[in-house]
């Protein structure tokens, strides 16, 4: 058979690698800043764009979409052509993908710190950027699919199956989770409300972990570990079995983020069962990766690349064991809302994702620049610093998690909360936060060594843009197979077509109808927010308050003692978006406005506390939000907000948008007068008053009806 000659273009792989390196440093630096802000709460001072709650999404998004994303894009653009013996389908599409993705990252970095956020974790991007993400994702997917269609190798290697699953699933999840009605260019309300919104978000959130941080990296693992160790994967059969098992199970695991919430019990049980089952395929992957190195452990001793892969895959095994454990309701009762979760996800990112990225880049850069790694010794040092950094990061946070959870749950012999003051449980774990910042610093130093090492490596070599290869054209089919032959490759095109049709057509039409109907409250006392409260809520969302304050009281005695009646599904029906949160760095606020509860605070307290928390409670680690007293509400948008909310099923009467501003000002004057009588002079239309109005409304509907 005649061999066809062709060339691979390494340009985009190279671009994606440097993007990974650069954004990796940014992601870690922002994360480190956030870690320090938790121990030096006044670090951000009066700089609004540096405050913890605004940069935390910058950190998470940069780590996930910029560092890990660009990393696996590099892997895909490198491995796919070589596995399929054909160059990537289109250079233009590759370029659009690369530059489009970087543009998205820049836009994210330019919006989050300035308070433009949808408040859905890892999906905080405002709606115009969401559309851009979808477009770029489609370009990336088409490029990948067309490369598959043009392949010269009939067999699709397992790594590519992982890439395909990544693309298909992320596309669906991202679109479904971000369905929203725009109010302005920077603000939109999700079509889901409350508990429904929470379910959609965590269905997305968990699968972002599954299909953005796991499947593509497993693809990387299946390509790069065999290549670096120069031996085939331990069991190809196992790789196929665990691939299919993994993708069929993962999509149902999302509800484990909402255990003990107002989510129906059966849905929670579904999430738990599937999460527990996930151990099997996850460990199938880990074992397969590690056993590939059987008989090659001498290489692991020498080669920093393999060391990183080994720690990476081990960390994957650890976090996929821990994940199912955390999904058990009994464990979750303790772990949820604590730093345990933070420790868990960082074993995944610092251990699994980052180590796989580091290893891959240490191996690829010398290859692409036709040279040897600048310093193997330095890479080994990086390996050890990174491993230690990860442990120093996570182990203290495990202790912080257990400690704080146990303190929350502790009762005295008389039956009172042993630590009724939330702040006590925070100061107790502060030393762990110091250690975490230390671990993070170590890890960051390691990353800087990495940058230096790869940079020097590239500088001493010369970039090899093209590599030639040759292969036989795709084998001719058996005559009896020719019916299939025609369809071969097309199921994927059908996939795309079906997705576009289903998602854009069907869902957008059906979902709002369904949801609006089911948003009819089951609790008659629950009323829509007043315009001022609604404005306050938007500020709460924009500032990222949900990142440290939950609004979800679980049905445990210690929580109902501390925060009041547990949260009911019917109370959240007007919450577009939901604000359950997933971490309690500060206390729960679901019933912050209920006057009869022990934690109730008057308006003036809230005012002073937001301006400077340490003045009110000296040991607090909450940052200050003084700009809330300066920034003004844009009253011109208020009627539009009311209108959109009504479209979403919130029962504001017809024509209420015209009266909304007047109502808002009346309520504003009332609160402002109250503040004035406490000696606080607040000007007109300040955000802080709206925020106070919202906080004082929280959780009150149910209590007032009693």
């Amino acid at each position, binding site marked *: 058979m005649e061999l066809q000659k062709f060339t691979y273009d390494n340009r985009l792989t190279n671009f994606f690698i440097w993007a990974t390196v650069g954004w990796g440093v940014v992601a870690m630096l922002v994360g480190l800043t956030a870690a320090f802000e938790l121990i030096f709460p006044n670090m951000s001072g009066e700089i609004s764009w540096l405050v913890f709650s605004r940069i935390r999404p910058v950190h998470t998004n940069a780590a996930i979409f910029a560092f890990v994303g660009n990393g696996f894009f590099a892997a895909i653009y490198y491995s796919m052509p070589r596995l399929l013996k054909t160059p990537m389908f289109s250079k233009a599409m590759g370029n659009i993908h690369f530059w489009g993705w970087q543009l998205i990252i820049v836009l994210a970095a330019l919006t989050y710190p300035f308070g433009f956020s949808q408040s859905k974790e890892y999906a905080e991007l405002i709606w115009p950027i969401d559309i851009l993400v979808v477009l770029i994702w489609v370009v990336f997917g088409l490029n990948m699919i067309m490369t598959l269609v043009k392949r010269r190798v009939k067999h699709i290697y397992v790594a590519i199956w992982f890439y395909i699953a990544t693309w298909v699933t992320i596309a669906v999840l991202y679109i479904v989770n971000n369905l929203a009605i725009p109010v302005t260019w920077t603000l939109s309300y999700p079509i889901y409300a409350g508990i429904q919104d929470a379910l959609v978000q965590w269905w997305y959130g968990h699968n972002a972990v599954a299909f953005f941080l796991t499947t593509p990296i497993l693809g990387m693992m299946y390509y790069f570990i065999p290549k670096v160790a120069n031996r085939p994967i331990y069991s190809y059969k196992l790789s196929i079995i665990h691939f299919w098992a993994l993708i069929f199970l993962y999509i149902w695991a999302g509800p484990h983020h909402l255990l003990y919430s107002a989510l129906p019990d059966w849905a929670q049980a579904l999430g738990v069962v599937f999460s527990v089952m996930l151990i099997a395929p996850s460990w199938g992957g880990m074992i397969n990766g590690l056993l590939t190195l059987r008989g090659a452990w001498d290489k692991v001793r020498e080669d920093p690349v393999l060391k990183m892969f080994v720690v990476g895959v081990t960390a994957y095994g650890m976090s996929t064991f821990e994940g199912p454990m955390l999904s058990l309701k009994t464990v979750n009762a303790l772990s949820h809302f604590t730093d345990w979760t933070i420790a868990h996800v960082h074993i995944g990112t610092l251990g699994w994702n980052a180590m796989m990225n580091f290893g891959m880049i240490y191996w690829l850069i010398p290859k692409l620049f036709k040279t040897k790694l600048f310093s193997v010794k330095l890479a080994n040092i990086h390996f050890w610093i990174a491993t230690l950094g990860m442990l120093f990061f996570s182990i203290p946070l495990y202790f912080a998690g257990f400690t704080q959870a146990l303190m929350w749950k502790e009762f005295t012999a008389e039956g009172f909360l042993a630590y009724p003051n939330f702040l006590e449980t925070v100061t107790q774990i502060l030393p762990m936060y110091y250690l975490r910042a230390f671990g993070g610093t170590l890890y960051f130093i390691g990353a800087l060594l990495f940058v230096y090492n790869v940079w020097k490596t590239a500088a001493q070599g010369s970039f090899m843009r093209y590599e030639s290869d040759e292969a036989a054209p795709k084998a001719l089919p058996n005559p009896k197979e020719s019916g299939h032959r025609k369809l071969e490759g097309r199921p994927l095109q059908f996939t795309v077509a*079906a997705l576009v049709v289903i998602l854009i057509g069907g869902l957008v039409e059906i979902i709002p109808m369904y949801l609006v109907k089911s948003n009819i409250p089951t609790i008659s006392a629950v009323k829509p927010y007043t315009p001022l409260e609604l404005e306050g809520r938007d500020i709460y969302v924009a500032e990222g308050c949900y990142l440290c304050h939950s609004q979800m009281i679980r049905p445990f005695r210690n929580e109902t003692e501390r925060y009041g009646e547990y949260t009911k599904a019917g109370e959240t029906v007007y919450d577009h978006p939901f604000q359950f949160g997933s971490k309690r760095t500060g206390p729960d606020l679901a019933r912050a406005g209920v006057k009869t509860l022990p934690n109730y605070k008057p308006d003036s307290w809230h005012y002073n506390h937001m301006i400077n928390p340490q003045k009110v409670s000296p040991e607090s680690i909450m940052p200050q939000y003084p700009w809330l007293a300066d920034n003004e509400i844009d009253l011109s948008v208020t009627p539009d907000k009311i209108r959109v909310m009504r479209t979403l099923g919130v029962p504001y009467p017809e024509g209420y948008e015209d009266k909304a501003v007047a109502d808002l000002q009346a309520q504003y004057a009332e609160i402002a007068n109250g503040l004035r009588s406490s000696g606080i002079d607040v000007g007109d239309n300040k955000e802080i008053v709206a925020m106070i109005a919202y906080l004082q409304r929280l959780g009150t509907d149910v209590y007032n009806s009693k």
Partner: protein
Amino acid sequence: MSVIIILVIVGIIVAGIFLLGFIWAVKSGQYDDMYSPSVRILFDDFNGTSDENSDESNKDSKETEKIENNTKF
């Protein structure tokens, strides 16, 4: 909680897409050979551009050719 119905439907659609992918893979003989694909990926190192092949990469590609001739795929 009608959104659950939607999520279940979407979940089943996604799972269905994967199922079609699986059926296609099995039917088209993707999984007839469960060994050689894992070995084959190790043999694609044709290093260098056509005009500047280093000695090392030449050696590599010759080796690869030899093995490829033996494996037949």
